[in-house]
């Protein structure tokens, strides 16, 4: 199924959780903030939250800035 991650279409297996998505992208949950369909997710629900087809996911983190 297809989701939008950081503006790009990606196909992931149905039933993937947010944690699963991060793992599949080789990202460490501790350092990432997840916005799921415009809602910020608490880390505690990464495992329980399932990504559905057409969902929009933003994965953000801190970068250098002034």
């Amino acid at each position, binding site marked *: 199924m297809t989701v939008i991650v950081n503006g*790009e279409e990606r196909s992931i297996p149905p039933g993937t959780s947010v944690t699963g998505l991060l793992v599949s992208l080789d990202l460490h949950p501790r*350092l990432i903030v997840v916005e799921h369909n415009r809602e910020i997710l*608490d880390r505690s629900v990464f495992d329980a939250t399932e990504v559905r087809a057409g969902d929009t996911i*933003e*994965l*953000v983190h*801190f*970068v*250098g800035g*002034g």
Partner: protein
Amino acid sequence: MKELDTPMVIAGRSFGSRLIVGTGKYRTNDEMVRAIDASGAEMVTVAVRRVDLDRTREEGILYHLDPKRFFLLPNTAGCYNAEDAIRYARLGRAAGVSDWVKLEVIGDERTLLPDVVATLEAAKILVADGFKVLAYTNEDVITALRLEDAGCAAVMPLASPIGSGLGLVNPYFIREIKSRLNCPVIVDAGVGTASDACLTMEQGVDGILMNTALAEAQDPVRMSTAMRLGVQAGRLAYLAGRMPRREVAVPSSPVSGMLA
């Protein structure tokens, strides 16, 4: 310094250094880390951006800066309206380092000057949402007073445009802002070299935030040391109370006791 100056206190938190530094535009992450060490800064700003899924862009800043050692201040740089700024502020808070935010709502791409109306609107919402808001603004004392009334933890007027290095263009207005506000006043943006930082602190402001002057110096580590010293020098000169200016000379050695 300790016995000669007090700490900078923002929202009840004390900082031993009055210099706040950004983390952008360094040639390498290693140079950034060494420059920040040399600056003596305890608070550093960071930006909130998408993870680069292709790994072509730099990895997260947390790989290089220990949030236990530095107090991270997420900014809303790049936001051109209140809604975006609020979204970025919340994403920054969700990273779990703090509920502080350096609020920037830009109104013009060429000058990167703040949209003061949108900044005020966003500040009210973020304050109500429990944020400690440090608000970037221009030199207008009226806007500064309203940001304070809105509950901002600190007001951050510019010395000159972001990344310009033009230094303190309007000392009158910066002094006016400091004299009229009770909350901390941190000058943000425009400082280009150590004498700019020193002169700015001599106006009596509480601190300075800078980034480009360090990252774009030919030798960022030396310049960061210079800025650390320059900020301290300006602060102490302000506290010391300078001599009067005179257009007539006055000898430093006794005029009496000359030989015949």
